[in-house]
């Protein structure tokens, strides 16, 4: 697997590159800025580009902007955004233009080589990756508590994994269920929650996250 890396913190960048190489990943680029990374990707597209959200020059949203640009210019390149805080908005924004191959993880998580590699592999398979922390937070939010309580534990598990961006196959592997069963659970969840969108893997993560994030009021207002 070939990976391009961009982070302004030299210590973190080098550490991550070393860790990736140790686990057999080919790190083709270690960029300090988003522009540097885009130049590299333009010349030699990797399988996945890993970007810090906060980078020079303004230390605000350079990573997101670069991710959006790469999504346009290199739709085949998987993108993993790293952040030091869980920000649902950023995750939604990232998935907004198409969630296939897009990922958002907390930096804390990447010191677990297994998790990191699994995420990268999911991205190369055009799945999405949403940090479990974000999903947990959304699931414990008060505004959808009533509807979520109508789900069975199993259904809630399926919902969680859908929100994390996993495919039905991925969910079935996680929960040791058959793909058919997972599909059935997913359909039930969608019905119970009143989600009308067809539960296709690609778009459903965005639908689920948006639904979790919105409140009943805004939902009703939208209708």
């Amino acid at each position, binding site marked *: 697997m070939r990976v391009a890396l961009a982070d302004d913190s030299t*210590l973190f960048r*080098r550490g991550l590159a070393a860790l990736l190489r*140790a686990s057999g990943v080919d790190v083709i680029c270690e960029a300090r800025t988003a522009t540097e990374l885009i130049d590299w990707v333009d010349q030699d597209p990797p399988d996945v580009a890993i970007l810090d959200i906060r980078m020079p020059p303004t230390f*605000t949203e350079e990573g997101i902007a670069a991710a959006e640009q790469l999504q346009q210019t290199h739709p085949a390149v998987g993108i993993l955004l790293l952040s*030091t805080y869980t920000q*649902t*908005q950023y995750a939604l924004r990232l998935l907004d233009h198409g969630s296939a191959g897009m990922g958002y993880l907390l930096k804390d998580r990447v010191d677990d080589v297994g998790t990191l590699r699994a995420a990268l592999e999911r991205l190369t398979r055009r799945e999405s990756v949403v940090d479990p922390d974000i999903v947990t*937070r959304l699931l414990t939010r008060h505004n959808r508590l009533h509807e979520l309580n109508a789900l069975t534990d199993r259904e809630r598990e399926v919902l969680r994994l859908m929100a994390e961006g996993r495919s039905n196959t991925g969910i079935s592997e996680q929960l040791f269920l058959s793909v058919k069963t997972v599909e059935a659970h997913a359909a039930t969840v969608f019905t119970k929650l009143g989600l009308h969108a067809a539960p296709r893997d690609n778009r459903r993560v965005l639908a689920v996250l948006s639904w979790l994030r919105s409140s009943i009021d805004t939902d009703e207002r939208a209708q």
Partner: protein
Amino acid sequence: MMDRTEAKPITQFGRGLAGVNRRGGTTSTRQKRMPFNISMFAAHVPDGDGLRRAYLRSAVATAVVVAASVAVLFPSLQAPVQGEWLLQRVVDVAAGLLFIFAAALLIREPAQRMTAVLLALGGGCWLVGSISVSLPGPVPFVGALVLPLFWFFTAWALLRYPERKVATRSERVFLVVAGICVGGGHGLVSLFYDPSWTQWPQSVWWPTVVADRDLYVHLWIVVLIVDGMVALFYLTLVVLRLRRLGGVDHWVLAPMIASIFAAGMTVVMRAIAPLTEWWQQMQSMLTSLALLAMPAALLAAIVRRRLTHTAVADIVVELVRPHSEVSVTANLRTALRDPTLQVLFWVEQTQCYVDETGQPAADPGEGRMVVPIDGAWCAGVEELCPRDHPVGRIGVVVADPALARHQGLVNAAVGASGLALRNARLQAELRAQLDQVHASRRRIAEAGVAERRRIERDLHDGLQQRLLALTLTLAQVRASTDDPAVLKVVEMMRTEMHIALQELRDVAHGVLPAMLAQGGLQPALDDVVERLPLTVDLDVAPGRWPPWVETTAYFIACEGLANVVKHATAEHAGVRISSSDNELRLEVTDNGRGGADPSRGTGLAGLADRARAIGGDLTVKTRPAGGTLLQAVLPCE
């Protein structure tokens, strides 16, 4: 008194004109001396005891005069008098008594004692002259000698009022001429008179030298003409005096001048009128009526003089309102009846005087009266505001020098204005200081926000990145060994590092949420709302605001929402942020039980402080529909 005037040069008009530093005060070439000084005026104001004594004296004097008049009048009215003369007699006696009464009142006026004495002498002469006609012995002769002196004394008295002295040389010349003509002339003519020509009783003693009726009539005509000329002279002096006097005196003396003119004209008429008996009686009556008007006019003058002082009371009443330089000038002009009056204000910073418009003041010119406005006018104020205090020196009043005669009035009016101006100036200073405090408080608040951002960034981009890099290094260690002992330690370290990272993030978030600086209020509040155990409707207008406004709005919203969670027992809350007229409006609502009181507890009061620190405001009220409404308005400029 004089040494104060000499020792304390007060006015320097404009820097260029005076060239004197007030504190240094060394190299003056055109230094102006104050022509007037407060203490000069104050010397004439009687103290409490003096005032009581003056009232007692005038009361006694009035009683004595009235008793004496009644005693004299009683037998005179008993005497046989022809019918047509009775009315004349009553009018004459009333005029004389009124003169004495006016004198009794006048004696209470500051420094008018001599004038009052002259007036009383005049009234006495008139009374004696009028009554003597019906009395036996030498009394009618004495009366004939004394009666003309009435004119002399009265003219003298009126020339002294209200100036306290006969001011000009021509006035002094007049007094000498009038004394000789009126006193001497009439006495001389009476030596050629024989009482038997009229209906006087035989018992009357008269020192007749030559009893020649033709001679007497001719002499009498001469005397009348001289009287007329003297009267004309007097009226001329009165006109000149009127032109010399200022606005206040005009107003005060108007009724008196009118009555003087009437009386004077009767004397002039006497000189040019035919000598028929009817005309003589008519003229005599007119004169008496005019004279009756004169003390009445004097009384009116005294009252009017007092009235001008009440204008000062109006200024004092105005004190309760905020005062501007312009309104004080207008008040002073009205109170002192001097439209040319100017108030010049001392500016401490530039060390010069300016007029109401703030322009440096020109030299007031020669002959203008300059009165300082400062702390010394009102007793007890000086201790509060000593002269060298910037507020102690307010400015000067430049006025018509004619006002110098109304020391008490000027004293009171300028004193009251001084208080008003001090009041205005203190208010202005307070306002300026308050503005400064507000500005500095806001600067501090802004600096605080900037500092928070710096600290947050340092934590986030410095310390946190190092810790994260360390976790990666640790991961490499873990990947490079199979030793269970090492793996155990590494795992422990990893757990600790993650706790440390979380704590670090909590600290940084408390200092300033990174999302606020990066994405503004919408994402930052999204983040907050997501963690709350209730449904929050968040409505943030698009766009960004200045950092200190966003930060303040963020903390107010957070604290407001925390209050809702803690106290309101609400199921729903709403945060609404809108932008209008260069200000941010923030509303936090809930459907809870309401009853929040900012005066109790420090939470809401602290929020109000935060809002006010950047010049905004915050209110909390219970909504009629239920729940609480917290509103904040934060200016963005």
